[in-house]
């Protein structure tokens, strides 16, 4: 091997080679590398032929979809007759997958993610892959390579992210259900800004296999639907331990979540988290809408009180090192994640390999995050990542303590209403702020693993407001009970029709 390459590699590791090492390294490194070239090439099974298309002009005016499909599921099952859209991070065999970036151009998965297999077996029809933010790294819908995703309530505004297209597809009725992914709020934020229901389940509830990872300790996928009941039904199909997923656990028993939607609101104990309503976590219109909804809940018998969880104010800061380092580490493992070795994700990894040379193709927001992570890593090593997890355990304990007295915690899902999509020429600061400002209340629960649901609780200035409930680990039933109760006392109009 070229000694110049060796020296460069050594320098990047901070190694200065002694003369003896410089003498011996080429042969030793060469010997180890020789073993690599003897490896069998990655299997590339043929992808099944599935018919798909890009949306034609005028067909998808809000830009929700990257690809349209018409894949029929089983003839019978709980999801028969329902159309499902999949975030473009989820492997759907035979259909190109983009994860919001041009780096994956040419990648078509050869195998369905297990959750897709379950959804099809339940009778659902898959109608497409939805546009998402560039490598999932934005809470606003303007960083994906296919262009901004527009909010159905006002197409000059963000639909939220990173499961932007999934939320829009459900809100407009282009799909009945959607699968989203959530590492910091990426299901709940777009669901709230588009006026639909979105659930980040308990960590490990739904197998995260055949899905592009961000950080294995934060990865969740979950259902998005127009009603709590449909989301519950979808969860029943998606949930279940898969021993191949190290995130999962066999100790998460399922429950009858659809039935939970019918539980009476009377006696439901709700605690509004004061820190979740603080300036920076809730604008006045959002706070007013949330309070009004909780008043209406109280009016049908729920017990609503206020509670303080001081550590919640620090929640996003405790989560931040985990997402920063996780995103960087994920890219260092070509997007696959060390220890996660399924073949079709490895093929995806081959496309991402060499991403460092194509940094110009990443969104400007992601470039800020990656740079911050790398600078932090050089200065502090991986310690902040572990600090985040350690303090995250204290954070979890704080929410658990709060949940001892009540069934669910409550707070706004997103601090404000859907913001205007930033101009491509806007300052980097403005664009970055727009991308991250939505996740203050949602992010902590990705780290602690508590299940959290957003349900639309009204409009302010014509834009939807989402109310988020959080429950104990494993207690999605309480979330569905609470969400259905809010639906019962809230009249949400349909979004204006834009195409």
């Amino acid at each position, binding site marked *: 091997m070229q000694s110049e390459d060796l020296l460069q590699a050594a320098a990047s590791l901070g190694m200065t080679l002694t003369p003896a090492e410089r003498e011996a390294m080429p042969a030793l490194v060469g010997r180890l590398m020789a073993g690599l070239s003897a490896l069998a090439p990655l299997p590339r099974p043929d992808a099944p032929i599935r018919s798909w298309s890009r949306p034609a002009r005028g067909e998808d005016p809000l830009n929700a979809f990257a690809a349209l499909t018409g894949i029929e599921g089983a003839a019978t099952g709980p999801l028969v007759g329902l159309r499902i859209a999949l975030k473009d991070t989820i492997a759907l065999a035979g259909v190109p997958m983009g994860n919001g970036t041009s780096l994956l151009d*040419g990648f078509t998965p050869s195998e369905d993610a297990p959750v897709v297999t379950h959804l099809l077996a339940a009778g659902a029809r898959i109608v497409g892959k939805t546009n998402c933010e560039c490598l999932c790294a934005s809470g606003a819908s303007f960083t994906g390579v296919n262009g901004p995703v527009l909010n159905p309530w006002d197409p000059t505004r963000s639909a939220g992210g990173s499961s932007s297209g999934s939320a829009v597809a459900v809100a407009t009725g282009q799909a009945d259900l959607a699968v989203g992914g959530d590492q910091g709020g990426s299901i709940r934020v777009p669901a709230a800004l588009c006026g639909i229901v979105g659930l980040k389940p308990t960590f490990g509830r739904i197998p995260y296999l055949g899905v592009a990872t961000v950080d294995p300790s934060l990865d969740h996928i979950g259902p998005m639907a127009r009603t709590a009941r449909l989301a519950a039904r979808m969860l029943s199909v998606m949930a279940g331990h898969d021993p191949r997923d190290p995130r999962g656990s066999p100790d998460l028993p399922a429950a009858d979540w659809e039935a939970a939607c019918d539980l009476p609101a009377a006696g439901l104990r709700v605690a509004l988290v004061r820190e979740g309503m603080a300036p920076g976590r809730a604008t006045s219109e959002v706070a007013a809408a949330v309070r009004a909804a909780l008043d209406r809940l109280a009016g049908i018998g729920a017990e609503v009180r206020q509670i303080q969880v001081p550590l919640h104010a620090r929640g996003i800061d405790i989560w931040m090192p985990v997402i920063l380092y996780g995103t960087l580490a994920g890219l260092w493992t070509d997007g696959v994640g060390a220890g996660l070795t399924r073949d079709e994700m490895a093929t995806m990894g081959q496309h991402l390999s060499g991403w460092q040379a*194509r940094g110009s193709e990443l969104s400007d927001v992601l470039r800020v995050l990656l740079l911050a992570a790398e600078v932090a890593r050089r200065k502090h090593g991986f310690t902040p990542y572990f600090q985040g997890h350690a303090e995250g355990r204290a954070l979890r304990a704080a929410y658990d303590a709060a949940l001892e007295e009540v069934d669910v915690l409550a707070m706004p899902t997103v601090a404000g209403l859907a913001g205007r999509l930033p101009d491509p020429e806007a300052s980097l600061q403005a664009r970055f702020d727009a991308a991250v400002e939505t996740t203050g209340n949602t992010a902590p629960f990705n780290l602690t693993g508590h299940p959290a649901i957003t349900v639309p609780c009204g409009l302010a200035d014509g834009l939807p407001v989402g109310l988020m409930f959080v429950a104990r680990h494993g207690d999605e039933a309480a979330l569905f009970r609470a969400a259905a109760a809010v639906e019962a006392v809230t009249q949400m109009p349909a979004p204006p029709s834009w195409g």
Partner: protein
Amino acid sequence: MLHYQGLAETADHLACGDLRAVVLTEALLDRIARLDPQLRAFVTVTADRALDMARRADEALANGMRLGPMHGVPIAVKDLFDIAGVANTAGMPIRSRAIATQTATVIRRLEAAGAVLLGTLRLSEGVFGEYLPPGSTPRNPWDAGLWPGASSGGSAVAVAAGLCFGSIASDTGGSIRMPSSVTGLTGLKPGWGRVSRHGVFELAASLDHVGPIARSARDAALLMDVISGDDPQDPTSLALPATRALRDLGLPLRGLRFGFDPAWLEQVDPEVAACHAGLCADLAAEGAERVELRLPDWRGLAAAWYRICAAQAALAHRDSFARHRDDYGQALAGLIEQGARLSALDLQAALQRRLDFTSRLIRALAGVDALVLPVFPFRAPRLSDVAAMDEATILDLHRFTCPVSLAGLPAITFPTGFDSAGAPVGMQLIGLPQTEEVLLRLAHRYQCGTSHHEIHPAAWP
């Protein structure tokens, strides 16, 4: 031969370090120095800027970084884009020292993608018809007696003779498509508004379109992906993201439909008609379905185009013409004077014809992905033919290009063969708004099965 290699292919070689940008740029600058005195494609060769950019590309790659999808690729642009510090002459002698102080969005996007800008390319005066000064008409590398097309003559000649890997030009009544056709190139006139006109010298605002000229649909697709998309600095640009044409280029054609109206093909030279028929047969053989269409009447459309163009040009030159009238060439001056004298009613009649035609055309194309049309109703004109053309023939020259400009629909032209005099013959595919990606796919598919676009003029190796 490196200089005739594909743009996309060259971009790949540069991006993985097989080729150094400085070496390639120097080779092309050398070729330009040797051959352009006879070809007359360039107005300004921006050698320093090009080498700076090439050096930047090589340094970036040495640090493991690709600047963008056009990393180190040498291209040139029609001389009507503002480039700060460089003259934007728009082919007008009075503008030979008009140094721009801003940079057009399209140029910024190209350079942000890593492109190396070799210089600006010759065009006819004011983007209209006449090359000035006399004797400066770019030379068609296929045959010096052949017209190089207008107004983007230099932009086509440079690409056809291997002086650059692609160019960006403009089309108001055929100015990308005609030069591309007579030089055997692939030129895309996108739909109106699909590419920003910020910093672009105006001929007629509602008819001007910016687009790429290249040696293949694949190359044109790469260029289009870089230059297209919403630009807040040009509020008339469509609020859509950039195209993703390169990504889906190879998708099969099954399910696509193309059409033509036999009535439109009456009074067309038999050799041109034969190329048209050949293209239709090839598209059908690739799996696209052929449909017969009934299009609105084409008669009078070129004349309507001329009136609208004249009025808008008169407006664009209002101040300049008043002050420098004597320094304007005859053709452009004639256009401006006619435009200024046009009565409101006559202009309105032209605008209404435009509206009527556009609406009818869009309805007629509702069931197809592409309309197949020739570029010219006759074979590639010779310079002597063009010099002697009367007004009726000039209008007829534009029979198939002006109506598409009027309607603002995207159109791609690519070579489909040679006529009995050895001149390239181009055909157009026209689509409904925002179908640039489909048109590029159709052209690419055709080029995968044919080799007309791979033949280069033997006299300029």
